[in-house]
């Protein structure tokens, strides 16, 4: 529906805008809230029951296969890919080829990388490789 310049279109509330952001670019929101230790808000946004559950999210991202985490992982992967590479498939393929590993550990690595509070900037393939090497050597790195 077209709006005249004098008409106000519908607007989201701040809360809805947060939700919209987390749907489209979850890693930035999760990273910010984890950094702040604001797990109450994280729990609310993610629809988790309590802050204790939400506090476990960075760990959940590494170890769980539930739908929410899978979605977040997928979105994080997309975001990383969007920032630096042509497609998320490209990252997965290149890492799989280099390390002869299947996709799931790659997803977990990327999720771990993306939720690290100091890793808000875009991620390069070289960084992924380096991070993945550490992952393979030392196991999952908690966010």
């Amino acid at each position, binding site marked *: 529906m*077209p*709006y005249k310049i004098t008409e106000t279109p519908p607007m989201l509330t701040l809360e809805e805008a947060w939700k919209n952001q987390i749907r489209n670019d979850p890693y*930035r929101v999760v990273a*910010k809230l984890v950094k702040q230790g604001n797990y109450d808000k994280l729990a609310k946004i993610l629809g988790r029951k309590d802050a204790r559950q939400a506090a476990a999210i960075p760990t959940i991202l590494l170890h769980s296969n539930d739908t929410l985490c899978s979605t977040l992982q997928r979105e994080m992967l997309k975001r990383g890919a969007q920032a630096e590479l042509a497609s998320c498939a490209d990252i997965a393929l290149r890492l799989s080829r280099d390390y002869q590993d299947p996709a799931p550990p790659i997803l977990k690595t990327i999720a771990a990388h993306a939720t690290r509070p100091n890793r808000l900037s875009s991620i390069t393939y070289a960084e992924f490789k380096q991070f993945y090497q550490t992952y393979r050597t030392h196991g999952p790195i908690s966010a």
Partner: protein
Amino acid sequence: MDPLAHEFLERLNAAVKRKVTVVLIGGNALNILGFKGATADVDIVCRSSEPEVAKFCQEYFRRYGIKVEFFVDGLFSNIRVKDYLQKAYKFDQDEFPNIQLKIFNLYDIALTKINRLLQKDLDDLTRVLESGAITESELDARFKFLLKNTIGDKEHFQQQYQKFKTLFKDLLRQ
């Protein structure tokens, strides 16, 4: 709203001693208007009568390393949106009591993007036009108004607008 923008507003709200006006522009404005899910920039318009906001933006970069792009009194690189405050949408919120938050008018968002036409602007314009939220006739009228009040390179703005009309002719006719 982007976490960086949210954080900026939180800190500004705590720092100012009187109620100030902030107009969200660009990606964050499109986010609030429901046209864009994610954005990474913090862009605002502030008033010269409230210099503490511009000063805070400058300090913000020094203190936190996050650049907040601010434009004073609706003056952009080469266009001036003279009546930006009257045309901006009032945004009710109680999270930042020291800030009167407004959202840049959709037509003004479109025209400032048209004036630049980077890839991200083309993406945003596509989303807005596909939604059918703006009309060509209103956009033409607003363009003429802004062009008349432009203090910078009018020719550039005109060329960009023509380029936009050519690029988006199919969407504009829908």
